[in-house]
Structures are given as structure tokens and as C-alpha cells.
């Protein structure tokens, strides 16, 4: 497995990170909507996938995305305690710690994945989260060099 350092060396100039963003329907997807209605500008690198709840997100979804070449994965849901389904996000949070370990063992820098909470009214937090991950992934370089 390659190290992060090597990866950065071969970064191409026109490379732009590709980010898969899983958002729950009730908070973060709505927060992303609000970012739009509020015209908050953020990097266009993320592609949002809508799921009902962060609890729906299987660890495989994240691993598969990285495997298929995503440079980063964002998971964004309701704040703990505010889940539309009472507690789905708590389950997501519980799975996350394990997820990070698995990713690391697979040779991927866990900084490539980000779990955040953004409510329907927190458009800025959502946008900032995307920006933060994009910037972080830009530092790490394209994933293709370190995977496999």
C-alpha cells in the first residue's frame, strides 16, 4: 500500500477531488437546499445522494465509493438528538468509529471521510463541511494512487 506522501507527489495539475456526499433527507439534504436558496457558494466537487436517514448508510456504501475512486466521502445528518427517526443518526455515529478503522486498515487516510451534523437551518455548516473536506482531500491528493 502506498503512503500519502507518495500520493501527493504525483498529483496532476487539473485534478479536482471527486466527493460522494450521503445526506439524510430531513436535516442535511434540507440544509444543502437552504445553502442553495441562501446562495451560499461552496466547491462544486460533491455529488449529494439522498438517503432517508444517516442510519441507512451502510459502511459498504462508503468503502465502495472509495473503491470506485471517490477521493473523499461525506456523511451528513441531523444533530444527535434531533433525528427525524428518533435515533438513526446515533446508530450512524456508533458505526462511524469502526468505519474509520476499517478505512485506515485498507490503506486509506481516514481524513478522506468526514461525518458531520448539519440541521435543516444550518446551510453554512453544511457548505463549510463540503469546503473543509474538499480542501483536506486536495492536500492528500487523488485516491487512485494509494488504493489497491
Amino acid at each position, binding site marked *: 500500500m502506498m503512503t500519502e506522501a507518495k500520493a501527493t507527489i504525483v498529483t496532476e495539475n487539473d485534478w479536482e477531488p*471527486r466527493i460522494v456526499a450521503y445526506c439524510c433527507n430531513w436535516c442535511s439534504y434540507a440544509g444543502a437546499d437552504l445553502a*442553495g436558496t441562501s446562495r451560499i457558494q461552496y466547491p462544486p466537487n460533491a455529488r449529494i445522494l439522498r*438517503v*432517508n436517514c444517516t*442510519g*441507512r448508510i451502510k459502511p459498504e*456504501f462508503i468503502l*465502495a465509493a472509495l473503491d470506485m475512486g471517490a477521493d473523499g466521502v461525506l456523511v451528513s445528518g441531523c444533530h444527535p438528538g434531533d433525528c427525524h427517526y*428518533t*435515533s438513526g443518526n446515533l446508530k450512524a455515529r456508533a458505526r462511524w468509529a469502526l468505519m474509520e478503522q476499517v478505512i485506515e486498515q485498507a490503506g486509506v487516510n481516514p481524513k478522506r471521510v468526514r461525518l458531520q451534523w448539519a440541521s435543516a437551518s444550518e446551510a453554512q455548516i453544511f457548505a463549510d463541511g463540503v469546503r473543509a473536506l474538499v480542501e483536506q482531500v486536495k492536500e492528500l491528493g487523488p485516491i487512485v494512487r494509494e488504493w489497491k
Partner: protein
Amino acid sequence: MSEVETPRIGVFVCHCGHNIAGVVDVDKVAEVAEDMPYVVFSTHEMFMCADSGQELIRQKIKEHNLNRVVVASCSPRMHEPTFRRVVEEADLNRYLFEQVNLREHVSWCHMRQPVEATEKAIDLVRMSVARAAKLEALPIKKVEVTPRTLVVGSGIAGLTAALDIADRGFEVVIVEKDKVLGGAVAKWTHLFPSDQIGEQVIEPLIDRIMRHEKIEVVRDSKVVNFEGYIGNFEVTIQNNPTGAERTYKVGTVIVATGFEPFRPIGYYGYGESPDVVTLAELQEMPRQYELFKPSDGKPVKKIAFIGCVGSREPGTKGHEHCSRHCCSAVAKAASDLRQRCDEVLVLYQDIRTYGRGHEEMHRLARGRNVIYSKFPPDQKPQVTIRKGKVRLNWFDVLSEDHLQFEPDLLVLASAMVPPSDIEETANLFSLTRSADGFFNPEHIKLAPLTTHTAGIMIAGAAQAAKNAHESAIDASGAAAKAVGLMARGKVEIESTVAQVIPELCSTCYTCVSACPYGAISIDKDAKPQAARVTEAKCHGCGTCAGGCPSSAIVMLHSTDDQILAMVEAYLCTPQEVTGGNA
């Protein structure tokens, strides 16, 4: 559940006026979409949601024999119901529709990057087309609605809602945890903007409730169990003193659990002197013509009110909201009491006498020589209690003077906060709460009376701080929602539930513990044993499927296959547009 047919996908890209087309090259998006797998038709149009756009979809479904429709427009949170209805009108199952969000998630947030925005739009359409190819028709389920409503709480909202529903001809069960009906309003002396006292308002309602043949009143009791789904709820009510339980079947629920006056321990000497009371306590104080000091029973000659006690406190959870009723309630009480006292003071931050007749009360109070003084929000009045005397010191912003006053009675206009058992109620009825601690409506603007749990309405101060007049209007409104469901007799419910593939289930119980609704159990009679979903209880969150280590749970309309198809479409397709030179 799966029909084998080759997908024939139609893609409709919306300009949304200039909202999308001003940034995204919609022409190009529609053009690229034409070559995506299974796409047989692709176009772009000014407003897909307008009647003309809808007609276009229906027409093209027929013309091209489309069996999947992708509309790339605004957020599905906005128009998914609209387009689902449109495809249904063209005899397509509503679950064969897929929406791409090109406005909120693309054009509006990448306004200065048209090339990247177009690239992102194409990706998103490609992802949705991939998902559309895997979509499956789901049955549209209709259920009967039991023609009976459960009203929780018997304040002015509960009583009004119950009467309206019963007057309209449906049965009502009204449950009240207290021994008496009437809630907060029944105890209120200075009701506004009228000159009635609370009792005069509530008594006639209770009188009618007790005589109404369609209403069953269950007092001194509370709901201990609540199950089921819209139209078919089963509620267990327990009598407080006896513990006896009774179960009712109801079709709809109105939660009118009201508020509690905040007990401002630690504020302005509350709890340190009996002569410091809340506004709610003032309303209930015994009086003849005069009001008497709780400490020594002498007549109250000087009163001071302080506003925003436990309200409008940024950063203090549950106390950030404005309690809405207090300014007007204080104006009313102050002007009433001014005639029997030597001096009445009102200390405030802003005066929010917003309602019809409220400004008049404010003017009346001032006209009767009530003194209004504004204190700075970051420099609250100081209260000292010495030898039983209450002394108030503060800075008057308006005159820039340091003031001092020794009221016989200090009245704190304390916040409206949710009842202490609201969390219990929230869990019981699966209701979510907002930052103010009260229940969340389905939509804060256009659906303030319904909740995200179908069949459950909220009314009055259960939703937010409100006055009696507003609560009564809420109640009638919530009643209309309940009656609407019951009068129709049948309602549709979402088909997007979890399903178990028994052959894959290892009965590890992950799903059982993951489900927030207790909708999954292990069917011990099955051979082999397997998890089983009680569909009526499933809300479709997918937490079970997210945790299942054997992929034995299928979330209908959100299958692993559908989700991964999107990821693959994004990451494993050569890109049409490369950054910088489109």
C-alpha cells in the same frame, strides 16, 4: 415485487426561468443525457412544474412509452409530490419517478462556476438515470381511517378541537392528565384582549363537552402506550389513581399538551421572597378588589413587572425563543392593576404587543400611568431582598438613569416552556421537537398544524408559545385536518418500508435493536427463524438495513442496488466535460 422490463427513461431538464438555466448549460445537460443508458427521450423546458411542463411529461410518457421519468429541476423536497402525481396521471407508478436537484444543489450554490456547475449537473443526472433504471413499482397502499380522534390535553386548544370534531359528527376521546379540565386559561385572571376572565371562557366549553354525546372525557389519566399508523392507532390510557388501563382505537390524534410557565429559580430573587411571583402565579393570586402581598397579607400598592424572564436568552437551550404572549399579558395585567395601585412599573427589552387589540392594551396601560422602562439585554435588573423587602435596581436605557424601586410585588413574566413530560409525549407519538423544546410542525410555514408523523396534529402551545386566542384558532385548524382524514375514510400510506429476505437473515438481532419504532422482531415460528418487519410500524428510515451485516434487509425505494448504482454512475463513467475547457 420486481417486474422484468427494459427501462425506457425520459429525462426532463428544467430551466426554472433563469434560476437553473442562468448558470447550468441545460441544453448540454439534456443533450448528454440522451446518450445515457436506457434513456430514450431527453429535453429541456422553461418550467417543468408549471401546467405546460406537466403536460409535456404526460405527453412524452405516452409518446415514447416511457416507464421511468427523471426530472432535473429543483429539490425533491419541493416538488417530488407534484411530479409523482404527474407520472401517475400518465398511468406510471409514482415510485418510477426520480428527481435531480439542479437548483438548490447546483445553480444556486455554484453561481460563479458555470462550467463546473454544468459538469456537476450532468453527473447528477447520470446518477439519477442509473438509479431510475433500477427503480421498482411499489404498491399504493390505502388504509381505512377509524372515525375517532384522540385529543391529548384539555386546555383551550384541546377543548375547542374536541368540540369542533364532535360538532362535525365524529367521535372524540379527550384525555387529561389533571383532575380538572381547562388547562392554563381556566386559571387566568387578566385574559386579553377581552375583559373576560379565564373561567368565563372555559366554563361554557367544558359544559358543552360534558353534554356532548360524541365526546368521551378521560380525566386524571395519561396515555401510556401508542401504536399503529395513520388511520389505525391504538392508544392505551391509564387512570392515574387506580392504574386501570383502557385501550381505544382512533384514526387521528391531536396533541394539545400546552405549555408550562417557566419557574425562574435563580432569576430576580424568585424563590427567595414570596413577594416575587411569576406572571402565571399572579393570574392565580386570590384577590378581592385589591391584591394582597403573599408575605404579610397587606394590600399591594406598588408592582413591578419584568419581561423576558427565561425568554430571549441566546445560547441558553430551551430559552432562546420569545414567549410571544407575555408582553401583551403584562400590558393587560398592568393596566388592570394600575387602577388599584399607586405605582406600576414594566421593565422590558422590546414591547411586542403585536396582535389585534394588543397595541390598544399597551396604550391603555401607559394612559393609566404605568411606567415603562427599558433595560439593556446585557445588563439585567438586579434584585436584592433585605429584611423581606424586595429592591430592584436597574439602568433605564431611555433616560440613561440608574433607577431603584421597592415593589410590594415583583411579577416575573416568565417564559412559556414545554411541559416537563414533553419528552415522554414526543417519544410516545414519535414527534420531533425544535430548539424551543416544543413540537415541530410538518412545515413551519404551510403546514403548521400537522407533524411529520402522518395522522398526528399539534395545536396551541404544543407547537410554540401562543396566547389563548391563537390556541383556539389552532385547535379548529387541527380539527379540520383530523376531520379531513376521517371524512375521506381512506388514506394512502408510504410504501417505502423495510423488507426481510429470510434466507439471508442470521437472526443477529442488529436490526431489532436498531429500529427506533420496534417494528422488527424475530419470527420464532418461522423455519428457519428470521427477522420480520411489521410494515405498519415501519417509518422507512432504513437504520435496520444500514446495520444488517448480511444484507438481508431491503429498503424499498432505497435499495443498496439503487444507491450503489448512483455511486458507480458518478465514479466509473468517463467524464464528458473536463475541468476548464467545456
